[in-house]
Structures are given as C-alpha cells and as structure tokens.
C-alpha cells in the first residue's frame, strides 16, 4: 500500500481527532470560563465525523484536495455551531489551493495553513486581536510564509509554525473578546485563554506530527 498524499492527510485528520479527544475536557473547561462549555465536545464531534467520512473514501484513488473537500462537508454537517462554518470554509480553501497537487511538499503544507487561515478570516470576518482562533492561525500563517520565503525545510517550518501558534494562543489571555459569545462578557473575558485558539494549537501540532514523520532525510 503506497503512502500517498491522500493517505497522509487522512492520517493527519485522524491524529487531530485523537488529540482533540484527549484535550476535550480541557477545551470545554476553557470554554466554560467564557462561553458555553461545549467547544471540546463540538470539536471532537466534528473530527469524528471527518474520520467516518474519510474512512468511506478509496484513498488510493483520491486527491488531497478531495480529502479536504470531504472533510469540510462532514465537519459542517456534524457540527453547525460557529466552528462548523469556520473550519468547513478553512478546509474548502485548502482544497481549492491544492487543486490537483499530489505531493504535499513543504511549500504545499505552508499553503494549506495559509489557505485555512484565509477561509477562517473570510467566514468569521475576524482579525487578529479579537480573542478568537485567528490569534493562533494568523501568527502560524506568518511563520509558514516566512519559512517558505527563506526556503526552510519542513521540520524547521513546522517548529516555527507551532511556536508562533502557541505564543498567539497564550496572548489571548490578555485580550478582551470582540467576537463570538465571549464578546458579551466584555472585560470579564480577560485572563482566560480562548478555547478556539487552544484547539487551533492542538490541530497545528497534529499537522506538524503528521508532516514531520514523512519528511525525507536530507
């Protein structure tokens, strides 16, 4: 069985699902502080649905872009909520960016992160500093773009992506929410990490682990 790109992406979603599952209670607790305490449940539900949908694909005969498209519909239909449209749009943008690509090079991986962030920004009409998942995704994208500009290899790129995302998520503690339900809390949202930013870090870490393992030695 060849380890093609679609298979790698399917494994990536599988890893994300496991990681989200492991962090489910923590995410829900973070959400309980400033939201309705269901972020962990929602994310877990969404990625479980993605897994079930990808299991139905014949991965030997599937383009990476098709994996993202399937993931988008499965996630959206299972979740709704606000994370549904946001991540569904992110996955759709990633699918559009990949088009017919089949190799998933480091540059492609950077493109995926960038496209996902664009999708989330578009759908949520949000920006950096709103205390949302974008506070992890935007710095992650900047790190990816920088790494691509200096032709950094995969491992180096992913290290810097994750570092930036973690720093970004941590910085949400000192922000006042501007979007989502937490926005109604005003200054009471201070001091709490945004659960969406926390789950973004989990997702990016699982992506790093997946792309990291397949990196050819140079």
């Amino acid at each position, binding site marked *: 069985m060849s380890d093609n790109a679609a298979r790698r992406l399917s*494994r990536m979603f599988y890893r994300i699902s496991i990681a989200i599952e492991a962090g489910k209670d923590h995410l829900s607790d973070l959400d309980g502080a400033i939201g309705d305490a269901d972020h962990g449940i*929602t994310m877990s539900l969404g990625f479980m649905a993605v897994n079930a949908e990808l*299991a139905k694909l014949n991965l030997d005969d599937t383009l990476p872009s098709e994996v993202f498209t399937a993931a988008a519909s499965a996630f*959206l239909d299972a979740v709704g909520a*606000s994370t*549904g449209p946001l991540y569904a749009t992110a996955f759709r943008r990633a699918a559009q960016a990949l088009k017919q690509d089949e190799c998933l090079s480091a540059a492609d991986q950077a493109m995926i992160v960038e496209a996902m962030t664009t999708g989330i920004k578009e759908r949520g009409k949000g920006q950096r500093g709103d205390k949302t998942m974008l506070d992890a995704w935007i710095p992650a994208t900047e790190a990816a773009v920088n790494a691509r500009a200096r032709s950094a290899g995969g491992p180096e790129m992913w290290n810097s992506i994750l570092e930036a995302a973690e720093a970004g998520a941590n910085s949400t503690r000192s922000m006042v929410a501007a979007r989502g339900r937490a926005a*109604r809390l005003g200054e009471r949202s201070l001091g709490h990490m945004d659960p969406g930013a926390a789950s973004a870090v989990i997702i990016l870490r699982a992506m790093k682990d997946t792309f990291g393992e397949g990196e050819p030695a140079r």
Partner: protein
Amino acid sequence: MTVKTSSARKNGTVRAGAEAASEPIPLRYGDDPYVWACWLYYEDHMTQGDIAEIMGISRATVNSYLADARARGIVNISLEPSRLSSLSIAQELKRHFGLHDCLVVPSDDNTRPLIDRLGGAAAQALAKLLKSGDTLAVAWGRTVLAIAEQVSVPGLQDVTIVQATGGTAASFAYTPELCASAIAGAVKAKLINITAPAVVSTAEVRDMLLREPLIQSQFGALAKANKALFGISSLRPNSTIHTSGFFESVSLQQYLARDAVGVVAGRFIDGQGNPVAGPLDDRTIGISLDMLKAIGLRIAVAGGFDKVPAILATLRGGYVNVLITDAATGRGILNADGVTELDQKLSQRPRVDNTVALPSNYRTHIKKFLNDPNDVVEEMLDGVVKANAAYVMPIKGSHRALVARTGPRPGKVGLVVGGGTGHEPCFLGYVGKGLADAVAVGNIFSSPPPGTIFQCANAASGGQGVLFVYGNYAGDVMNFEMAAEIAAEHNIEVRTVVTTDDIASSPLEDKEGRRGVAGNFFMFKIAGAACDRGLSLDACEAVTRKANARTFTMGVALEPCSMPQTRRHNFEIGPDDIEIGMGIHGEPGVIREKMMSADAITDRIMDRIFSEMKPAAGDHVAVLVNSFGATPMMELYILFRRVEQRLSAKDITIEANWVGHYCTSLDMVGASITVMHLDAELTELLHHPCDTAVLRIG
C-alpha cells in the same frame, strides 16, 4: 486483629500522612499504611468502610490511600493482554468509522469455533441493546443462528421480530425463517415472517407478490423496525454464500464480475459499500439497502479474515453502526484501511491517571434522565416528532429539519426559525399554523448546519420568499447566511431578521450586537402572524424588525446549567451570588451581584427595560416571564406579580401575558422578563390565531 471502639476513633485526627493513622500498623506491613490499606482492600476484599474501622481512619482517607497507591505504582491493575488488545481494537474501530459502538472478541481463545464466540458476544450485546417495544429486523446467516442459540433476554415486553428478507427453499439450517423465529423464540417476541420467497423467478412475480395485502402488511412491519441484526457475507470462493444455494450461481458470478465484495441482508455491495446492480435486483423480496440505512441501530456480526473486505465495505457504506467482530478481523479491517501504525502508536501512549481522591459524599455529577449522553439530541427529537406529530413532521426523514403539517402554502411567505437545542420548547415548539413553517435543529447550544436550514427553507417556501428569524449568535449567523446563499442558488428569496432583544448583552450604542433570547417568542409570533395573513416578504420583514426593536429582555441566573455530556456545572455561581444579564447558553452573565429579594431583582430588570422602552401612560405591552429551566412556576408568578405592579404604577396595560417555560437553558436556575412595547399593528398580529404545540391563540 484488634478493633478499636468507635469513641476512640472519633478523636483521631486524620491526615493523608503515614504517621497520622491512630492504629499501630501491624508489623508485616512495615510502616506503610498504603500497603496495609491495599492489602485489606485487594487481598482481603474488605469494604472501604471496614478498612476505615480497622485502621482507625476515615473512609475518605482510605479512599485517598487507595487512589494514591495506584498513582504511586504500589498497586498495579492489569487487564489480561488479549482482552486489553481487543478493547483497544474496538475503540479504534469505533473512532475510525464513527460507530455507535463496537464489541471485539479476544482472538487467542481458540477453545470454541469463532462463529460460536461471535454468537455469544452478540447475544450479550443484544441483551443490552434490545429494549421493550423494539421492532428488530433479523437477516439470515450462520452467525445470526449462532446468536439465536445463545441469546436470552428476559423481561422484555412488546418486542417484534421481523424477518428481513423473504424465505428460501434451500435446505440449510440457517434460513431466513429459522433465524427470525429462533431469535423471536429466544427473546419471547412476536414474530412476523415475510411469507414470500427471497428470490423469485421474474420481476413481474415480485411486483405481484409485493401488491398482496398480506405481504404489504409484513413489509409495513419491516419498515417500522428501529433495530436490525445481520451478518455480513463475503463473496470469496469458500464462502457459504456459494454453497448454501440461496442465490443461483450464475447470478453470483455476474455480481462478482461487477466487483461485488459482499452481501448484506441479501443485497450486493462493492468495496466502497455502494450497491452493485445485477440480475437479482428486481427479483429480490426483502429489505433494501436504503431501508436498512434508515434503521436507527444496525448491528452487524461478522468475523474471519476472508470477510475483511466485505466488512470494510459494509462499514464504508454506513450499513452498520454497531459492529461485533473478533480481534484478528478487527485488526485486519484497520490494517486494510491503513491505520496500522497509528494503532501501534496508540497502544504506546502514556496513560493519564485522572484518579482524584474525593470525599465519599462529594457530588461530582448532576443527575439527569439520560441513556447515552451522546444521543440526547436524537432521542429528544424522536420524542418530539412523536409527541408533536399533530403539528410537525420530519423533512425527508430528518428529525433535524421539521416542517409544520398545516404551515407552508402557495402564495404565503415561509417562516423558518431555528437554533441549537437545550432551549426547549424553543424553537421547535413554535412550529404550526399561524407561526413558524419550519425549524432547523442543531446540537446543544450549537447552530444547525446550512444544509439543514436550507431543507427547511425549501419546505417552507410557497413561492413568495422565505423569512429567517433567529437569535444573534456568531454561529447561527454564519450557518443561516450560508443557507441563504444555497437558497438563492435555488431561486428562493430569503430575508433575515436577527433578533437582539437581550438589553443586558451590549450597551444601547451597540444594539445590533445584542443577542437574541426569550424575546424570540414574540418575534416568532409576530412574524408568523404576518406570514399567515399573506403579507408580502417586505412587509413581513419590516414588521418583524419592528417587533425586534420594541422587545426588551433581561435575565438573571441563580445557578448555572450543566451539559448532558459532562453533567457538571459549566461554571460556578457563588453561594450568595447571582448573575445578572444572563444569556440562554449557560455563558456567564454580564455582572455578578449578591443575592437579593425577588422584588429587588425584578426592579433592577424593569428599571433597565423602562429606560430603553420609554413608555408613556396608557401604552400597551405584552409580557413574558420565562424560566431558564429549573426555576418553578411558583417563583415565576412572584416575579410576574412585581412586573404587573411596576407596569400598572406607570398606567401601562398588559394586553397579554405568558408565564412559564418558553425559552430555557437546560437546567439553569433563573428567569428572564421580556416586555414587548405594542402598537396597533403589533397588537393585531399578537392576537392573530395560531396553533402549535406550545402556543395556541384563537
């Protein structure tokens, strides 16, 4: 061993330290009370209460010794490796294929044939899954018969077993008739056979038979099945499907030539689980694959290496949601689907020990009426669809999209409402004549997805456009906007009114940013009446906007709510605190204050409402005093009493009022007060007749 008198024990101070125990430790345990406690518990099988007596410490300390002993590795609890591995395979299968449940029989137990072990496991599972009142469709096969031989489910009432396919003239022990009757006998259920052959000579004969009233009624029973039990047959040369004589071998070859890999309930599927067309299709009498997929719980029992492709195809096709197999087959399925390495990595994952020692009387969970917490929404909707059958029906079989039975009609603007669950009777209780035409239902406190909302728009559309009315939350806005885009592609014009009645959620200058809460009740009523009167889409939208602008709500929570999945409070409100400006999602309020009297709370709310509403003497209003879930009617009337006093003191007339559970937040303790400032038009629409499960006027 000596036992101290209780009076002496009560004086002993207890700490989780080694020296704290008031009873000298018997020599053989060294100076380690942990070892002592563990010995008494695990080797002498004493209760924690008895151990506390003997050691002269409290039960809570015993409990914490036992927990610490596990954390420190003094006690290791080990599962037999083969059982552990079958457990982790089951967990993987469940996760990977999104199954409802999965049971994997350990593989290294070779004392009995696989088919018997699978049958035994499935018999146990069936005893757990089969409930009174169920209708179980039973397919045929060696495995199914093995289940029937081992199952016994006492104490069930009103269970019906329906044979899932027609019968056969072939002479083997596990014919459809025998399988169904054996299961029915074992669980003492009513049996309904399909009294026609499974495969007939021509399509004409099949059609004739299906028109027979007797067979029609048998199929009617089959269509009512809420659970299904079946085996999965491989098409490999050594498979019994070839030798049984159930199918003609010529036909089998044709299905094989078209890449069929397996047979489920007498139907052929390919490697991806898609139906394979072939010569028997229109000569087969039995459950169709679509009928099978529509059944809620679909239990497949199958094992053996040769069946891996067929089982994988069944999983991919979504025909099964409870799989019972053996460890070797389970591993094979995962391998075939490319999850080998992860499987290994998973088993090496370090275990996280969540054991926290708590006093024995400490409450960690809220009690709720639940079966599986993950099924709450589906099970509630099952109940709603039945309970409110006079008012609503599912759209295309989905309980997530409900349409009014006497709602949509040509020439009328359609009204679609919706949102997350947990607010019942909002939103689904307001569907019916003169109110909403359709409702889209999401997960708990989560917006429904665009697809569901579009189904509602489509069903509600009478050619004059559709009005969406929903609360202002980021998730709902995104999903309803996406649904409106899909509707536009289908030439359905959609207008949207996002409700923003919660005056506590944002200051007046950011009125558009406010959330929609219990005031939805009034906005839905006004919009529904406008639509029912045949007003244009423009007019319906305009009057709903006016209702929204003139409706003011503020809520107060005394205790938080708890999600069914966690059964814990989402956050804590201190013993003497209340949350003012509470929303309907368990999100914290805007200000936390000390508890005060009912009148003082009502006054806080009414002062704020008056400051925005700016009423004049002689004005008319409608009032809603709404419970957040756990606050009783008694207290709601106390609040209403004060609301009425404040309004009449300003010479304002209450045109209509409602007191009760109208827009809740699970089991939150608290209430909200809503006032709609009426004018002539709103008054008229408020009194317009409507007939729904929760609200009936006229």
